[in-house]
């Protein structure tokens, strides 16, 4: 069973990379635009930190760079691997072609989540690595091996969280008719993850910790790299993201159950 799904995943991945390579000009332009986006995304940071020794929410320039690095990395994963295929679900629902997916002899959530990848988004990973190197260069130190290990665990958690939140957003499409812009809404909220979570106070702090756990996605991994993440935070992140994944799976199954196809 598992072997079959792994093979299926390989097939889908190969198909979408072939599709992306087909238009080589596009590939180059897309890569350049990704790079351009990442660079412009850094502009606010430089404006905030014009003054040396400036701190926001207790984070120095070098430390904030680490948060931005994680943000860039996750953005690459979101826009390259998660959102392209799931945006297709919304389209499927509107056109009534989701029936074809549901008829296939494999799990529908798996199928819709793996149909499309945008390989050029891998540039984000390179940019993120560059930002990490520069950040640590400014801090004048290197990350501890244990810190890196923990941050990789947290990377798994954040990807799971992002994916679950996306599934929840997509599930909403079963109940509301016109939701193309839900995806836009999601990315604009995700944008707040670019800043250390301690910047936000009051209502925003509550939302970004418990409702949309942006803090877990970018601030915690950065803290782990700096070797100052409390152990409890790690435990809660793992448990929390597992819980989110569970909830999103239930919601997805519920939505599929209530899906009325085009003709019914």
């Amino acid at each position, binding site marked *: 069973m598992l072997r079959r799904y792994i093979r299926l995943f390989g097939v889908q991945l190969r198909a979408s990379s072939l599709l992306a390579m087909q238009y080589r000009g596009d590939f180059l332009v897309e890569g350049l*635009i990704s790079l*351009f986006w990442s660079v412009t995304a850094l502009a*606010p940071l430089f*404006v*905030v930190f014009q003054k040396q020794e400036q*701190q926001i929410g207790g984070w120095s320039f070098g430390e904030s760079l680490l948060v931005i690095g994680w943000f860039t990395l996750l953005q690459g994963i979101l826009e390259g691997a998660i959102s392209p295929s799931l945006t297709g679900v919304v389209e499927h629902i509107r056109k009534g072609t989701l029936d074809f997916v549901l008829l296939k002899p494999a799990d529908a959530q798996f199928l819709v989540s793996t149909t499309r990848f945008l390989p050029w988004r891998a540039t984000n990973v390179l940019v993120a690595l560059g930002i990490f190197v520069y950040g640590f260069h400014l801090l004048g130190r290197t990350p501890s091996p244990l810190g890196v290990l923990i941050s990789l665990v947290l990377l798994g958690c954040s990807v799971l969280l992002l994916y679950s939140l996306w599934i929840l957003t997509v599930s909403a499409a079963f109940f509301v008719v016109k*939701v193309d*812009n839900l995806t*836009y809404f999601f990315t*604009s909220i995700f944008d707040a993850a670019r800043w250390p979570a301690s910047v936000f106070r009051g209502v925003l702090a509550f939302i970004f910790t418990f409702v949309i756990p942006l803090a877990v996605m970018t601030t915690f991994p950065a803290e782990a790299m700096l070797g100052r993440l409390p152990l409890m935070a790690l435990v809660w992140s793992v448990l929390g993201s597992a819980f989110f994944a569970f909830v999103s799976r239930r919601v997805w199954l519920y939505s599929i159950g209530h899906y009325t196809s085009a003709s019914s």
Partner: protein
Amino acid sequence: MSVRSTLRAFPTLLRVGVSEAVAYRAEMFIWVLSTTMPFIMMALWTAVARTAPVGRYGGDDFVRYFLAAFVVRQMTGAWAAWQINYEVRQGTLAMRLLRPISPLWSYAAENLGSFPMRLFVVVPVAAFSVYKLGWGSVPQTAWGWVFFFLSLFGGWLITFLANVAIGTMSLFMESSTKLMDVWIALFFVCSGYLYPVELFPPAFRAALDWLPFRYQIGLPVELMTNAHDFRTALVLLGRQWLWVALMLAMSLGLWKQGLKRFSAFGG
């Protein structure tokens, strides 16, 4: 079609735009929610200003600035580029072209028609700003109000015409949404949407004065929050309308050239 009949038809188009906005109010509400960036920037900048003010901005000034930025963004929104792109690709632009009035008027009417609905969000936000931070959150002089509305209209015109120009580019290449992405990235950085333009390093600030972006958001926001005296305001307003004229000439030129290349199904 003559100017007179266009003018006669426009109010009807506007009414259609308003009813469309009312019909899709849930969708519009989501759009409004996705422009929460000013609130995030507000949290960020007040955090920065907690220890010491940045330039002439303290915590309250940032709150006032970004509430105004939210208001201005709502009132200067345009999405014609995506519309044109979509309609060129699907060939449905042909249907619009059959009407005896330029499609540009109907795009404009659709955008403007959504503004009355947006007032339901914008007015409470502005009222909250006044309640919390005093009358400095809205123009305090008669000329201030006049200039503010002029700059708001100018800001919308620049946004809309840029949308038309970039949307029209889809008649020359396969799709211009990539181009729009670049424009939007520059818009975010240069318009004063993420931070007051004054906070930019001095070397860049001169360049910003000559780019169109700050006249889309920055200038209306500054006029709303009484940042300029009469003279400076007049000069900046003049530059804004210079850009409006330039964009008008450019987008209409592109539109005329582009339509010659348009061939829908069977065309």
